[in-house]
């Protein structure tokens, strides 16, 4: 799963940064770039669709206790389940019941929360780790840079899902393991991106200007170079959230997610429903659709954001 399955759209960002193309804030730095970006996002239908999906997803995840009719592990319809029959949609259970008698709609709502949590935490972990490595490499240069980048190459020499699987296998089967595994897989990607962006920024005139004003290297890095390098990182993080949601489901699918069969988590629900296709296909289709739509939302929004922040396409 880079997989990283949807890791690919990210390659633009990575490749762009690596070849030293100027970051989004090439010429006109400061607040204006973000204002321009927002204006451009509002005109892009893909961005609006993506933004709406992301917004709905986040709201559902945050408001799960209010929206869901039943608790995350509740099995209100347990008595109605038969080996060959799982009650479908009814007024009481809008999307029907699952194999264990849980309300499918409630489970999906709680699942959004699990996905958001895993996605945000793992991306934060990847971002922090990557930022640390990339910052160190980009700021010091020289042998520190080479050593860090060799480590990054090493991590990238194993396909992402395999790396995640082996990390999760060592830590044990739990959602924490999934978060750590997905986060660690993202570290080299963020590190490379941040380093590339910072290298590109270091050569810019404003850095020279700040240095000649007598600012220390640290001040220049932290208050000038870093903020100006953030655009691609934010884009990457948005796209990574899509990947994280998919990879979390994949790890669950491989049995590394932990939890019980009734844990409301999309990947796990989909996996559990595999053998119920004949009885109730919706049990697999709906969680699968939730994963795909959420990933679609983050991808659409992330790509629109990248376009909006790209100075090369700005003038048009």
């Amino acid at each position: 799963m880079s997989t990283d399955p949807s890791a690919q759209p990210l390659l633009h960002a990575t490749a762009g940064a690596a070849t030293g193309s100027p970051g989004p804030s090439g010429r006109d730095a400061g607040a204006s770039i973000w204002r321009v970006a927002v204006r451009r996002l509002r005109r892009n239908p893909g961005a609006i669709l993506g933004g709406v999906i992301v917004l709905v997803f986040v709201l559902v995840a945050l408001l799960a206790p209010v929206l869901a009719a039943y608790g995350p592990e509740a099995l209100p319809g347990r008595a109605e389940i038969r080996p060959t029959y799982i009650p479908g949609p009814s007024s009481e259970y809008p999307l029907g019941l699952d194999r264990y008698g849980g309300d499918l709609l409630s489970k999906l709502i709680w699942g959004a929360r699990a996905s958001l949590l895993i996605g945000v935490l793992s991306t934060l972990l990847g971002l922090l780790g990557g930022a640390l490595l990339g910052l160190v490499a980009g700021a010091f240069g020289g042998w520190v840079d080479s050593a860090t980048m060799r480590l990054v190459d090493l991590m990238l020499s194993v396909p992402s899902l395999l790396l995640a699987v082996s990390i999760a296998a060592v830590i044990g089967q739990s959602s924490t393991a999934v978060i750590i595994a997905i986060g660690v897989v993202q570290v080299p990607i963020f590190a490379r991106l941040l380093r590339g962006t910072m290298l590109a920024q270091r050569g810019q005139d404003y850095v020279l200007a700040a240095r000649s004003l007598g600012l220390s290297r640290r001040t220049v890095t932290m208050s000038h170079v870093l903020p100006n390098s953030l655009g691609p990182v934010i884009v990457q993080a948005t796209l990574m959230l899509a990947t994280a949601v998919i990879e979390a489901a994949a790890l669950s699918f491989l049995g590394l997610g932990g939890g019980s069969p009734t844990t409301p988590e999309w990947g796990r629900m989909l996996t559990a429903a595999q053998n119920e296709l004949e009885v109730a296909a919706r049990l697999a289709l709906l969680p699968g659709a939730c994963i795909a739509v959420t990933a679609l939302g983050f991808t659409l929004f992330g790509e629109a954001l990248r376009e909006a922040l790209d100075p090369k396409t700005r003038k048009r």
Partner: protein
Amino acid sequence: MLRLVMQRLALLVPTLLGLSVLLFLWVRALPGGPATALLGERATPDAVERINALYGFDRPLVEQYLTWLGQLLQGNFGTSTRTGRPVLDEFLVRFPATIELTLLALVIAVGVGIPLGYLAARHQGRALDHTTVGASLLGVTIPVFFLAFLLKYLFAVQLGWFPSAGRQNPAMISTHPTGFYVLDGLLTREWDAAWDAMAHLVLPAVALGSIPLAIITRITRASVIEVQNADYVRTARAKGLRPPRLRRRVVLRNAMLPVSTTIGLQVGLLLSGAVLTETVFAFNGIGSFLANAVFNLDYAVLQGFILFIAVVYALVNLAVDVSYGLIDPRMRVR
């Protein structure tokens, strides 16, 4: 060209050494240590001690690492705790299956993706273009295993057009000189065996190829659009090059460079995806074996297979770099 290849192969050595250190430390970092991993959590302290002495886990780390590395270099990757067979044998038996699967997936992705991306670019802004872009976005965001699972349900379970699991009909009797079932069928002239193996490959390959297909389509489209508007294309047109020749020799050829990089990058994705697709279709390749090894905590298999996969991955990327020179003379290394 040869120098590039040699240089890159030489670079592979430190990468693999680094990876071997990481993999070595990884097993040592296991909760309870490797002895517990081998014996299970209920092992008596006495048994743990004996295993530690037997495998030399009580020796200094550096010495252990060098011993392990020496064994690796001699082709001894350890023994699978689940099957009791050498890891290398397990790998070699299953590798052809995964190669067949990923190759077909790649053929589908490239064979459909490049023409589709090209057509979309030629009809930029029209319905075909919008449909293609939309579909490829969906292709990237639908989880591989979900798609695999939908395909299996629809085309194998419901419609019965394709077999739903395995590499070959269990009732089929055929010989396997190479381990590549389709090739075997062709070589031994057992046409029905080749056909049967092919039928087993179709659904997993389509599922596995979906994401690379979407990506290749998008990159081709973007690349063709960029090249179409390049000055040299206008020049070529102005000097009177006929459109078919212009498209083939100028546009398509120049647009292929980013596409070939992308194709190389898909291999990692395909190997990751193979773990999932092979599991859904009970396809006996390295992916499903690896997934099982995770469950059974079969660490020798995990270590060995990950090293193998890293080698394959690196070699494929090298091949991609070499192919640049074939596509673009400017990239040829002097």
